[in-house]
């Protein structure tokens, strides 16, 4: 039995949480930049410590559970959300392989974790015993379950080309050509599904503040809300890191060391996520489902078909 990689086990969650926290500040500053305003710029250099201040505020808030809520599930839901995201990072080959970078079904593991992540939202909506939360939970269930299908199918192309579910092998397979070139279609579908998975605008229907107040986390406050919040941002980092790993060659790059390349590529995708939020309105629920089942599903199937055909022709 190999010894437990203690350092990565301790460090990865800490780094991810810190990243997610900083990301809340980065997002607000970037949105400010694009919206002709400042954003938080008072606490610390450039407002950097705003995220820390917010964290302290959330931590010290009264830990309150609405009397009508299903207490056990209500508390469990944000923990599930947080846990599944953090566990997913275990297999991301951040730099030197991560915790379990070599897991030969790494990709499946991540998909499984994302599937479990739906429970956080659905259970939160259910346990709140509030109509707005329930509607949010319902939307989340339908949206995330459908988008998981296309996400998995879009990844199939990568798996076929790389011939492995291990993320390390997939990165290694891209040493020549990044998969974004042969798998461009898959990349687009994956990214769209990723936005829906992290329920970010324009696919933030489970929250849909203009319609549902705050959707599934309407009744949450304090650090339990904070966990949903941080899990959402960690989810963005996860999807971006995943996109980097699967399509942008992971840490591959010239001159700079691998971790720097990895961070740069991930950062660009994260910024793109934020830009989307600044730019786009939200489609209606049925439009979102229509886009998924009528456009993205055929596209991802087409991608698998085309990839398979090319591979077959090459082989023969």
């Amino acid at each position, binding site marked *: 039995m190999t010894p437990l990689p203690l350092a990565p086990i301790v460090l990865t969650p800490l780094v991810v949480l810190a990243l997610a926290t900083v990301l809340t500040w980065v997002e607000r500053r970037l949105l400010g930049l*694009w919206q002709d305003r400042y954003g938080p710029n008072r606490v610390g250099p450039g407002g950097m410590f705003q995220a820390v201040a917010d964290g302290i505020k959330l931590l010290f808030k009264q830990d309150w559970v609405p009397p009508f809520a299903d207490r056990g599930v209500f508390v469990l839901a944000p923990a599930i959300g947080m846990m599944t995201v953090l566990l997913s990072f275990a297999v991301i080959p951040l730099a030197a392989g991560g915790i379990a970078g070599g897991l030969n079904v790494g990709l499946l593991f991540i998909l499984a974790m994302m599937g479990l992540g739906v429970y956080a939202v659905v259970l939160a909506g259910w346990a709140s015993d509030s109509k707005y939360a329930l509607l949010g939970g319902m939307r989340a269930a339908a949206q995330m379950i459908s988008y998981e299908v296309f996400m998995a199918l879009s990844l199939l192309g990568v798996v076929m080309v790389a011939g492995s579910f291990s993320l390390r092998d997939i990165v290694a397979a891209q040493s020549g050509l990044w998969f974004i070139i042969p798998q461009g279609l898959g990349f687009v579908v994956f990214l769209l599904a990723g936005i829906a998975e992290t329920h970010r*605008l324009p696919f933030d229907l489970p929250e849909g503040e203009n319609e549902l107040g705050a959707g599934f986390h309407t009744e949450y406050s304090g650090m339990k809300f904070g966990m949903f919040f941080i899990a959402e941002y960690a989810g963005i980092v996860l999807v971006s890191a995943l996109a980097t790993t699967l399509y942008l060659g992971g840490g591959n790059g010239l001159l700079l060391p691998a971790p720097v390349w990895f961070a740069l590529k991930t950062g660009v995708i994260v910024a793109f996520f934020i830009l989307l939020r600044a730019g786009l309105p939200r489609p209606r629920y049925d439009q979102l489902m229509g886009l998924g089942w009528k456009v993205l599903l055929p596209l991802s199937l087409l991608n698998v078909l085309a990839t398979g055909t090319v591979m077959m022709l090459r082989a023969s």
Partner: protein
Amino acid sequence: MVLSASPITGLDQPGMMATQSTRDGVRTLWVTVDDLRPTLSTLKEHTPALLMLFDLTAIDERERTHRDGQPPADFTVIYHLMSLATRADEVRIKVALLGDRPTLPTISDLWPNANWYEREIWDLFGIRFENHPFLRRILTPPTWTDHPLRKDHYARATEMPPYSLTEEQERHEQDAMRFDPSAWGMQRHSDHSDFMFLNLGPNHPSVHGVFRIILQLEGERIVDAVPDIGFHHRGAEKMGERQSWHTYIPYTDRVDYLGGVMNNFPYVMAVETLAGITPPPRAQMIRVMLAELFRIASHLVFYGTMAQDVGQLSPVFYMFTDRERVFGIIEAICGFRMHPAWFRIGGVAMDLPTGWEDLIRAFVNDLPRRLDEYDAMVMRNPVFRGRTKGVGAYTTAEAVEWGVTGPGLRATGLPWDYRRQAPYACYEQLEFDIPTGANGDCYDRIAVHVEEIRQSLRIIRQCLDHMPAGPIKADHPLTTPPPRARTLHDIETLIHHFLGAAWGPVIPPGEARSCVEATKGLNCYTLVSDGGTTSYRTRIRTPSFAHLQMIPLLGRGVMIADLIAILGSIDFVMADVDR
């Protein structure tokens, strides 16, 4: 009176008791309670379409002294009809009612929008409408016991003992707010599923103020909707009976609080009609220019919040930045931003400051370019179009049935603008187009708003180029306050100033209404003077009140998200609804 020449015909029938002459020249006819429904239905039949029940209100006549030639009455109910033919034509039908608890038949089957107006009259005057489908209080809470616009009702909190709320009372009040579907004749479940009743508001990000809609939902689809208003009711009409004619002006700003001086406009025009004042041309053009600036400010808020209602976060920031520039100009001219109360009886408060042209010209030259950018960002965005096209559509006929005016009416394709159909102030001299839509859906309403911003810029540019010289206040003893230079020179004017400031101007008895094409539709003040320093009755007919009544019609069968888009596209302000 040549009846055949006007669009509204059918007035020459036996039911008419008397005609009354009013200061505003609107034909005013009295009918008996028994003749009311036949008269109104004949009118509706005779007038080829587009006859709108513009307003429906009442007067408590019991303390009024100047009622020469009018039939005896304790209460009068006024049916204000307006024909939307090529030129605006109006007629007032009045019904005299005797007794403390009078009743009369409902007309909500003739005009669906009478429903809320009749509820309002019941609520505020205690006049019952027989066969009304749902005669409940609408502006005051359901636990209220009196009828506030009656003359014997107190007007101020100081006339009451201190207010206290025991726990039991609080429970009682909260229970009264609970929604009971059966009271509205709603089913709790269909054959195969239970309905969910969702309380949207009074605090909800998308109801633009304090406004509650109760939704009967099947999944996310709306089966029925019940709007509940009155949370913002501040008794603006009652206040009009206490404040002097002059000191009421600032209250009007706060009715449609996004419209600023646009609200002063119909009020001061109505007072001027009663007093027989004609403001000088420069004052007229300053009024028009400021009103159009406020139209832009209000439409910008609409544009931004509309985009936000469908989930687009950024536009509202750009549009509020532009609105800020409008406020910069307003502040330079008036000294205030949102509620300048800048119009006066007989003119405006002060002349334009030095350098006003440059301020406005810079803005007028810059905004079109930004509007083009917003078109690309919002109006041409496919997701935005997908959310607004074909959503919440109604026809011109429906709009007229429900009393819809303003951009919501023009979006149905009817080029009807009060500034063109019945020009007031100096609009006759100004060139502008009336933008219209074709489908009457959310998208068209937004497009009309956006184009109106451009047309307002055009009007402002003309005001800029052709601003007449001369006085900014009318040379009339009732101009309040009188021109300052003259106050300091002759004792006669000084006395007027003193009386106007100490007691307020005394406006001759009479009745007058004045309408403007406000930011959201037709805004109309009907004033009754009994020859005193305060108004005997101030009636504020606001566009938002009429528009909100349509929500159940538009909301049935759509998704929650569509309802939010519909609410945004109606462009309402709750203070304008509840007054």
